[in-house]
């Protein structure tokens, strides 16, 4: 594995071995001194060309827990505002001594392009509405640690699937690991074509509530101008929001997940967000572990215990 760009590039056993590795890092992160010298001397650069806090911090935390050095590229204060191209920017970061680039960019395929322009491993931190593969890994790890498996579980992914790189990554990862996936959204928020996707599609959240193990809520992207894709926020909540009533209709062992940041009171009710069966913070914690696994794998580190 030279890069980590698209879940579609991975076989089931690749996913499972990364999850196994991440399990080990969860254990390391729970130690009094949550740090190993595996990547000492390596430099991990986060190059985020669109705003992000949690993903960038999570990668930096993961790199530091492996004793790598980190560099942060922040577009607001950079040469990008002077018109420098993406290609020149990433080649500059490589020339400064980056051993690995984590790239987030609003354009689909950006991380793939970057991997063609540089010689160091590239991790996709999100490319447009296409892929966010470490998010899929952390979601899969969260589910696997909760249920002991992913195989055979039924996962409903709810909301703006059309514009979501999280959904595109999760669908591939969950189905590769043997889960059943149902997409729940109005037509305006579904991909225009889902033929050939390993999913079922349902226009009603209420219909699937009693049969799912995981409800994965996507963020309503308010900045997208929701009014053109659904009539109003209250109408969205009435059909697709995880209200207290809907939460009560879930099977008792079912869990609720969300990639964050949450819109409380929109896709997830305030009380549901704080319920122990909403694993949002657990997902964040697992994010550090899976990113450690990816960095460790790509940089060929050794665990010297």
């Amino acid at each position: 594995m030279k890069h980590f760009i698209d879940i579609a590039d991975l076989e089931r056993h690749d996913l499972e071995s990364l999850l196994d590795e991440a399990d080990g890092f969860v254990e390391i992160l729970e130690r009094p001194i949550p740090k190993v010298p595996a990547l000492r001397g390596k430099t991990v650069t986060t190059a985020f060309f669109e705003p992000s806090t949690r993903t960038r911090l999570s990668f930096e935390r993961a790199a530091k827990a492996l004793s790598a050095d980190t560099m942060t590229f922040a577009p607001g204060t950079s040469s990008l505002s002077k018109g420098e191209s993406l290609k020149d920017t990433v080649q500059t970061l490589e020339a400064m001594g980056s051993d690995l680039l984590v790239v987030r960019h609003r354009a689909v395929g950006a991380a793939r392009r970057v991997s063609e322009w540089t010689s160091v491993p590239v991790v996709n931190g999100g490319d447009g509405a296409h892929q966010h593969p470490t998010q899929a890994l952390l979601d899969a790890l969260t589910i696997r640690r909760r249920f002991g498996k992913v195989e055979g579980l039924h996962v409903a992914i709810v909301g703006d699937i059309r514009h979501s790189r999280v959904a595109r990554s999760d669908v591939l990862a969950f189905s590769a690991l043997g889960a059943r996936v149902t997409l729940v959204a109005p037509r305006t928020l579904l991909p225009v074509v889902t033929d050939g996707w390993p999913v079922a599609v349902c226009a009603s959240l209420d219909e699937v509530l009693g049969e799912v193990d995981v409800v994965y809520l996507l963020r309503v992207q308010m900045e997208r101008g929701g009014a053109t894709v659904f009539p109003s926020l209250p109408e969205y909540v009435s059909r697709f929001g995880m209200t207290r009533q809907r939460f009560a209709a879930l099977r008792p062992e079912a869990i609720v997940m969300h990639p964050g940041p949450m819109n409380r009171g929109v896709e997830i009710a305030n009380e549901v967000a704080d319920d122990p069966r909403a694993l949002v913070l657990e997902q964040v914690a697992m994010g550090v572990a899976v990113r450690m696994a990816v960095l460790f794998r790509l940089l060929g580190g050794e665990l010297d215990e």
Partner: protein
Amino acid sequence: MSEIVLAGGLVMTVDGPVEADVKVVGENIVEIGRKVGRGDADVLDCSGCWVGPGLVDPHVHLREPGQEWKEDIASGSMAAAAGGFTAVVAMPNTEPAVDSGHIARFVADRGRAVGIVDVFPAGCVTAGREGGRLAHLDELWAAGVRVFTDDGPALFDGGVLRRAMEYLGDLGGVIAQHAEDAGLSGAGQIHEGEVSAALGLMGIPAAAEEVIVARDLAVVRLTGASYHVQHVSTEGTVELVRGAKADGLPATAEVTPHHLSFDHREVLGTDPAFKMYPPLRSPDDVKALRRAVADGTIDCIGTDHAPHAAHEKDVPFEEAPRGVIGLETAVGAVLGAVGLGPEELFDRMSVAPARIARLSDHGHLLERGGPASITVIDPHVEYVVDGFVSRSANSPFLGRSLTGAARHVLLRGRITLRDRKVEA
């Protein structure tokens, strides 16, 4: 006067194809026959080749004035000659746009000064291509413009389209439309379908093209003016054009070589060399386009040659400018995609586009006394596309194998291409 003999090809004459030599003296054809006298003539071997009227491209972007780093009239003319063309219609989306007489004259004059291919400027329909008030149509007409288009944005306002059609109908020009409904195409990047869904790229539905063509054809019915659909990309548009022709409307259509050659699955690798508008469509659309070229529903080939500099395309797909070059690969691509015979090929790439664009000196089947603007096509030559005469190289055919290319070209008796080498 110079004498040239095109020796031993299959010649497209007004009386049909014949195996013959063609003798050219000065600017005209003086003899078509077996074993014409060669004397001191410059003899060009045409054995195994098709000899027909010089190719005409009704849709190119030469980028001059204003964007000469991508292409200019000199480099674009060389690329045209390399592709086998003797005439091109240059789109008006330059900077400034060709919306008044002096800018059209500048383009035509530059073409004449370069002298490798006849450059006919198309003119804008509206001032500054803004879709509002009409451009200086009379001035453009007086400067020789016969094709009017705002190519790029569609003429969106039906009332403006109607007035332009009425006004130009009196003069005799043709309105060419880049059919794309801005609302339906939205932030779309590629064809709306399984590829756009998988990649998370916003899609441009086929309907974005079809609603404009359907509306325009209704206005053609109202005004009786000549109308030309640029770069047809969908099966639905083909059917609309077919129906309009059956009803006797003065409607014509073109298709690009790349829309005949590729479908949207090429975009899965997000290579910006496959980014153009309209986008590459579904395999069914490609099949329908090929059939429509073969049966003549689509009248002609227009390359939509749209050069962009390497650094402009060396970016992520979504940020890349739209458009690909096409002049130099047109013959090979069309022959590979549709498998036309010689008469059909010269019809779709010379006779028909010259007629549609009102180019009276081009597109004439060969005859004694006729103009010696001639293209010799070798339909058998196999080659890998590995470089371009054009200033830009943004081609989806780069690295691909093609069969068939222009071998020699004469523009009014002057050799502009000899054995696939441009003679500037």
